[in-house]
């Protein structure tokens, strides 16, 4: 590999031939800046190097963040859930607390770039089967041990262990997991030297980097893989848990006697749990219980604005799907599923569901901000056609039961879908299930709505949710052509080439009427004036090391 960035601010970083190609594409106008950044940083370029390839300067100063004043206690409204083995985390809130001491190899930024945290840099080979991870040197664990390649290898091995219940990292590791044994395949991870680790996939895989940046990928000490971090408290970060009362609050304080490898500002952070009701959060804000919301939803965005808090917004690939489950009649009939899609105007769902705070989507769960997004002909809203199609299928008398969780936007969106279906002549009953029990059967409800978080690449969510037989396949979709094409797309580094396959994948999603996916959500949060770096993150990440107050 040729060193491309020699002489730039980031000496020593190597670029990737494909990244050079991306840069050419970007300059030719075929690739917008965000897409270019996502793709080239996923291949191992630092954000600065990527920017330099296209002759641009980064939008923000070094590290993309403002520098707050040192000291202070910041209170964040966030659910405080019982901690467990990070691999099995199912809530970003858990990771936000442990991020104070359990850091990540790589982080994902709002501008679509990947940035090394515990990694100095990483490179992929030409066909994206071999990744070389270069560790940042001079990092120590707070028990005094040095952070070395052994830690990384132990974590990768742990992430690939699909025999651990609820280990969602195993899905993210893809081909590294041996399908027969359920653990890491032989030779999957090698320690090259103290600060270099090589990961080898059997087939091309471009989702490793986003997977490493995801919230269950917290890096534990090599001796504590599979344990609850709250029990041992060993990590590389600057903080330690000094108080943890589930459902009430958690406190992180700066760890005495531990030298953190970079600057950090706050002395103490408090995570204040005010339950799941946004009205309670608002009451808490008025009663001065916290300085920053985890997320602000729906009408509360305007309410928080009204009391003088600062709003931050990020457009994401987070969404709600209202999906029929094809294992249940009559949803096994493609005509019924198509009829559902035709009967619903996605824009109406967006306006009624989230006050129009988002972008209209096209029922294929690939977002325009995904690099491989292919534009398809616009959807047709045709209630009359839907009714005709439903009658043709012979299910016109069927009583459709549409299930949703009892909350704000998911319930409203599902209500909007139900209302439009009724207008088109469907016989619909709505069932609303409380949040505490909804998730018991979320993959098996015959017809229900589910929220999906943002993912960095279009193929990722298709792999998680629509491949035949995967655990989170809630639509019961099983299509051989789709699976084959998806496997093919997973190995195409070149985004234009991948887009060709992607166009077909998106078309299959629409033709098969797999899911009703009306919009992409913008995410908001609010901070009290004076809070620095409390910007909403695409993936609900809060990195406590960056937070602080204005001087």
């Amino acid at each position, binding site marked *: 590999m040729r060193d491309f960035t020699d002489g730039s601010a980031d000496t020593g970083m190597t670029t990737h031939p494909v990244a050079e190609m991306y840069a050419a594409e970007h300059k030719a106008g075929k690739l917008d800046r965000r897409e270019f950044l996502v793709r080239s940083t996923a291949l191992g370029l630092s954000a600065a190097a990527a920017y330099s390839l296209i002759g641009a300067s980064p939008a923000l100063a070094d590290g993309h963040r403002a520098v707050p004043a040192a000291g202070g206690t910041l209170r964040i409204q966030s659910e405080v859930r*019982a*901690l*467990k083995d990070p691999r*099995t985390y*199912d*809530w970003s809130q858990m990771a936000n607390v442990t991020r104070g001491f359990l850091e990540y190899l790589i982080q994902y930024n709002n501008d679509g770039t990947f940035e090394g945290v515990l990694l100095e840099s990483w490179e992929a080979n030409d066909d994206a089967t071999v990744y070389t991870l270069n560790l940042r040197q001079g990092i120590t664990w707070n028990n005094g041990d040095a952070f070395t390649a052994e830690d990384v290898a132990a974590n990768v091995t742990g992430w690939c262990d699909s025999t651990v*219940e*609820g280990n*969602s990292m195993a899905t993210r590791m893809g081909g590294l997991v041996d399908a027969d044994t359920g653990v890491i395949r032989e030779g999957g991870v090698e320690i090259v030297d103290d600060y270099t680790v090589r990961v080898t996939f059997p087939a091309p895989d471009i989702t490793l980097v986003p997977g490493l940046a995801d919230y269950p990928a917290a890096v534990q000490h090599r001796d504590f893989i599979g344990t609850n971090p*709250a*029990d041992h408290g060993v990590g590389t970060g600057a903080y330690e848990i000094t108080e943890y*009362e*589930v*459902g*009430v609050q958690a406190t992180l304080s700066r760890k005495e006697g531990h030298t953190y490898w970079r600057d950090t500002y706050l002395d103490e952070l408090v995570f*204040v749990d*005010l*339950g799941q009701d946004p009205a*309670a959060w608002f*009451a*808490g804000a*008025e*009663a*001065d*219980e916290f300085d920053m919301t985890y997320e602000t939803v729906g009408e509360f965005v305007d*309410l928080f604005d*009204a*009391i003088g808090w600062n709003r931050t917004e990020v457009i994401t690939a987070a969404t709600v799907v209202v999906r029929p489950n094809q294992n249940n009649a009559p949803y096994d009939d493609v005509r019924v599923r198509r009829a559902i899609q035709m009967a619903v105007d996605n824009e109406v769902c967006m306006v009624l569901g989230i006050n129009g705070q988002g972008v209209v989507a096209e029922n294929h769960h690939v977002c325009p901000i995904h690099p491989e997004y292919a534009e398809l002909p616009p959807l047709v809203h045709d209630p009359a056609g839907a009714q005709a199609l439903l009658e043709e299928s012979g299910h016109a008398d069927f009583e459709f039961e549409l299930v949703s969780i009892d909350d704000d936007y998911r319930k409203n969106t599902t209500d909007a879908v139900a209302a439009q279906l009724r207008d088109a002549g469907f016989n619909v009953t709505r069932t609303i299930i*409380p949040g*505490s*029990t909804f*998730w*018991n059967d*979320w*993959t098996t409800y015959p017809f229900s709505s589910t929220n999906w978080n943002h993912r960095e690449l279009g193929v990722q969510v298709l792999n998680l949710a629509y491949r035949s037989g995967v*655990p*989170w396949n809630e639509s019961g979709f099983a299509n051989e052509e789709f699976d084959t094409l998806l496997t093919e797309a997973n190995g195409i580094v070149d985004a234009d080439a991948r887009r060709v396959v992607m166009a077909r994948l998106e078309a299959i999603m629409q033709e098969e009427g797999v899911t009703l996916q009306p919009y992409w959500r913008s995410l908001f949060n609010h901070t009290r004036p004076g809070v620095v770096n409390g910007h909403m993150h695409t993936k609900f990440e809060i990195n406590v090391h960056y937070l602080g107050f204005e001087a």
Partner: protein
Amino acid sequence: MGAFILRRTGVMILTALCLTLVVFFLTNLFPNLEKLAKTQGNARMSDAEVVSWLDRNGYGGPMLVRYGEWLGVMPGWTREDAETGVITGRCIDFGMDAADAPVRCGLLQGDLGFSTVSDEDVGNVLPRRLMLTLKLMAYAFGLMVPAALLIGVLAGMREGSRLDRTLSTLSIASTATPEYVSGVIFIVLFASTTAGVSGMLTEWGWLGDGGWLGDRRTLFLGSARSAMTDITFWNFTLPVTTIALYGMGYIARMTRASMAEVMTAQYIRTARLKGVSFRNIVLKHALRNALIAPFTVIMLQFPWLLTGVVIVETLFNYNGFGWTMVQAASNNDIELLLACSIVAVFVVLLTQLISDIGYVFLNPRIRIS
């Protein structure tokens, strides 16, 4: 008397047994266990993973045996991992050697079990939360009882007067307004920057920066979280008033009825005819006899307040006993719920016992046999 207390204690234990068995049965229905597994394991676990999780964590055996384990009459479950050979069990704490662990660990051994939602021993969680609720109830009682008695006596001393009608109407209105209504009304009126009086006060400069009522933005706080560490007039008034108001009307009505009855008694008439002043009749002759009936009512308010705190603590985000019960129920936290029900049985029957015994002392005509 001794036999009476003994018998009551027996009834208390029997009731607690029955209630916990019912709670145990309901929380151990399979859908509830499934919910537990998913909240503890992973929200998106598959069915096979759920079964394996339940089995591994000791929820697999017959229900009655597990109830026995919880009581401490049956040996706690143990399980050896087939691959690693590590022995886990009900009585083996994190990091403890299996050989050192006790055989039984249940209620009889003083072990209330483990709260899955709090990730802590129930014995640690519950006292802390009960303490908070005790504070809330103490303040609520301190406000409710004197105010209710005063209203009741004032209303009852001249039955049918304008004062009586006014106070009676007020007490009926307060009894007819449940906590979830009055609490919300209070929050809107006194603890919102956009509605109610706070906006006006801020405009006048009474609130906000440099205001003489404090630099808060609202008159009272709509969230009692800060009261958990530091009770102030501004953060505790709304929850206390919300609880007190509901019970106040009821006690006042009882006191009024009792007072009105006493005021028509022969000896009061005699006192009047003798020329005793009205003030002395009320304070020296009527009051003592009129307060016997409200005493029982007041004692019975205790268990009933337990339901009140569930709503108020959730509404005002005060993490006490009531809030804990809601959390435990919605997360199917079996052992925490069981401990909560024991506390509830204890509170109900103990206050009844006190009220029965107290009644004997207040009213010499009653004998306990």
